[in-house]
């Protein structure tokens, strides 16, 4: 805890603030800094995503020229079912990994953590191949119409968060593999899983909006 830093000259004066020591309350318990910090980060990220979501909704059906979403991502056929399943499944495997972590079972933790990373990596791989397809075969680029602009910015913002999540996951994975995650770092790991759940929740919104609703236009 940073509050324990010491330095400088010893000039502060001791003060006693207890006027009536007989009135001692119980232990003074405050929330964890990491958890509050992570909640704030998720809050601010939510605000960031909301604006891109609003922009996407605002521009739905406002493209003046093709390609339109109904042509390039028609509802059941081009919906990323498998990639979405992989991403949602990774939210469950990471819970499993956490359970193993609380049991201090390093081997099974690594297995489930690795499965989570593999599922996330598949999602990133799928997105890259989907973008290749859209750009080279369908001609949907960020500058072709407002659908292109909002599609790539919203999906891309989410994708960048998945990639950041993958980097965080692999840091934990490598450190654990090297035996560097002692028990008192459990909360750090937990925070990364919070972030991963958040990225998943955002995908629920993006999937619904981009792949279920927008192909009507």
């Amino acid at each position: 805890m940073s509050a324990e830093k010491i330095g400088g000259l010893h000039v502060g004066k001791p003060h006693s603030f207890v006027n009536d020591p007989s009135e001692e309350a119980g232990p003074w318990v405050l929330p964890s800094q990491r958890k509050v910090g992570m909640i704030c980060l998720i809050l601010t990220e939510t605000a960031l995503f909301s604006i891109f979501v609003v922009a996407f909704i605002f521009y739905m059906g406002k493209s003046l020229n093709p390609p339109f979403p109904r042509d390039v991502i028609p509802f059941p056929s081009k919906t990323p079912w498998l990639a979405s399943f992989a991403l949602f499944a990774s939210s469950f495997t990471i819970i499993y990994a956490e359970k193993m972590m609380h049991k201090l079972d390093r081997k099974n933790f690594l297995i489930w953590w690795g499965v989570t990373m593999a599922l996330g990596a598949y999602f990133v791989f799928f997105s890259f191949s989907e973008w290749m397809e859209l750009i080279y075969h369908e001609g949907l680029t960020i500058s072709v119409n407002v659908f292109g602009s909002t599609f790539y910015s919203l999906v891309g913002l989410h994708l960048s968060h998945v990639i950041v999540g993958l980097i965080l996951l692999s840091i934990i994975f490598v450190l654990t593999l090297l035996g560097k995650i002692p028990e008192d770092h459990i909360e750090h790991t937990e925070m990364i899983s919070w972030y991963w759940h958040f990225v998943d929740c955002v995908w629920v919104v993006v999937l619904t909006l981009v792949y279920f609703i927008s192909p009507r236009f």
Partner: protein
Amino acid sequence: MPNGTTIVEEEKEFEPPPPERVGEEHGSMTRLVQELVYTVDHKKLGLMYIGSGLLFFVVAGIMATLMRIQLYFPSSKFLEPDVFNRFFTMHGTAMIFLVAMPWVFGLGNYLVPLMIGTRDMSFPRLNAFGFWVFLFSGLFIFASYFTAPGLYNAGSAPNVGWFAYSSLTSKAFSKGHSTDYWTLGLLFNGIGSIATSINFIVTIFCLRCKGMTLGKMPLFVWMILVTAFLVVIAMPPLSAAQIMLTLDRYLGAKFFDTQAGGSAVLWQHFFWIFGHPEVYILVLPAFGAVSEVIPVFSRKPIFGYPVMVAATVSIAFISLSVWAHHMFTVGMTTAENIFFAISTMIIAVPTGIKIFNWLGTMYGGKIRMDVPMLFCIAFLFQFLIAGLTGVMLAVAPFDWQLSDSYFVVAHFHYVIVGGIVFGLFAGYYYWYPKAFGKMLNDKLGHWHFWLFTIGFHLTFDPQHFAGFLGMPRRIFTYEAGRGWEIWNQISTIGVFLQGAGILFFVVNLIHSYIKGKEAGDDPWDAWTLEWATTSPPPEYNFDKIPEVRSRRPLWDLKHPEDPDWKFE
């Protein structure tokens, strides 16, 4: 900590550091620079925030002075039109993001850990990151004056206004890179602000000393907490809009390209979703400073503490739903006009409650007319008028007449200078003795106060009338015979008085640092924890983490026979 809780251990005593550290305290200039660059101490970072804010304040103030000189005579040729455009853009951008924000964050950084009785912020390195990102984003934006001409040689500093309305910022109308300096500089500035704000929230929730429940925190800490939440929620919309603008300008995206189905109005919405809460982000810490100064100088506890907190929180909530009152003239639907007019009027209610609470605190008190209190009293009058013109502008049909006129300029300068800057000056005079161990000179302080107050009124009162007479904002000159001359001339004279006031302030800061009267630990006989340690506080703030039982722990300490905690 696996159980997710932090238990503050009692009785943390420190051994004095080894004696060889003593000589290092006053080293050479290099040593000072090294220390400032390396430091993660919240007090040094706080002072660095305020100091660099002051530098930007002087630069942006000189820009304002030059603009006022240009407007002194009709059809004046003192400044070129595009120079004028750059000046009002940079003046606005700098005053909001590079002056008011760092002043607010600096005061918060310095005071929050002291007030809640802890040794530093939760994440000291993140804190240093926030400061350096702010400083370099500011230097980056100003660097546009030297580097922005770019390929087309078509501009230097940004000239699109501080809210950079779309279509002005498109590639077609803003060639070169001047707009990109604005966009990217503020994008990074926003990231720094968010980092600092998250740090504030975590510090306030997780590092309070024993006994300091949320209901016992000083009001300044409450205001910083609410401000930090507003930054966390309201800053990302600006960042998002700036990312979209950058995509538009560099990758040819169509967000704000009206010819390709994009919408210029969407930029206005996104900007003001950030822009209006920003006003409260800046003013709430000023409210906090005033809420600390008025009780101490009235010798009474704050009147209506819980109501003050409730009013602050409701201001924060309502402020998120008033943004489009900046856009009445853009042509919204009647339903939208009514909604934003009414929500804007409602926000005057909690603000009014605060003014009554400050008056209630002063009522029947033994008021001490020292310089911090003078600034607070001027703040009360000026903020009241600013609020009243705000309610006037909230009436959509009235706004249709006066939007983008000098009346609006007068209104928001009343808020930002008359409210925020006066509140912060009160705070500086109040807390300077704590930070430097010396009192600010009273005589120079009075000169500062009276010159700045009179100058402020001479500058901004006439602008209301210029606005009524139809003078639009952001024009670089005007024809004679429209009845605007006299108001502009008074206004320009006022700027020089304000400048003289600031000169007295800067002289006072330096003079008092060298020759000021020793302050002692608690020169104002105040009640909050920052006055319990030495002036200036040691690097670790408190030898022993204090324990509090009421909102005025130092009162309890000084009056053991009649402590506050018996009544709270």
